[in-house]
């Protein structure tokens, strides 16, 4: 099941308010996205912890409702 870009951005911003979210459609089907998320709140955290913060923003919807999100995270 697909998820449009505005919904992805909304969910990430609800969890990480200062995030800058850049989305790239990988297949044009709203179901395969690449996201680069930049946030000051990532500073000092391992990449795993940064990704876990973003993954958590989706609740259980990642992997079910949204099929694929290739993720890159950066501290601001």
């Amino acid at each position, binding site marked *: 099941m697909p998820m449009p870009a505005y919904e992805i951005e909304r969910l990430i911003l609800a969890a990480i308010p200062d995030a800058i979210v850049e989305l790239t459609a990988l297949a044009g089907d709203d179901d395969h996205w690449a996201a680069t998320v930049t946030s000051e709140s990532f500073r000092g955290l391992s*990449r*795993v912890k940064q*990704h876990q913060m973003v*993954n958590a923003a989706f609740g259980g919807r*990642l992997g079910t409702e949204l099929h694929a999100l290739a*993720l*890159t995270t950066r501290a601001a």
Partner: protein
Amino acid sequence: MSDINARIRNEIESSAVVLFMKGTPQAPQCGFSMQVAQILNHLGAPYKAVNVLADPELREGLKLYSNWPTFPQLYVKGELVGGCDIAREMFETGELVALFDKEGVPHA
């Protein structure tokens, strides 16, 4: 649930570097798993590969244990380092070799 977590801890601590993957390094069943196995092979670091496709209980248990929804999962000294995206980025920046050096993992 506690049984599976004990099994997971046992697996994670059974080697300094453990790769939970789909398939085996010789016959990977997923391109992302293959990439991480190739990185480890390229670096010449000894690692233990565990095929999660052969063990559905381990596969589901690990997702919860690690709070990480996908495979592969690369562990160094009992800590989740990441999946394919992170492993590849850390390989390209030299951070993976630096982590191996810090943790005393031999490599080429």
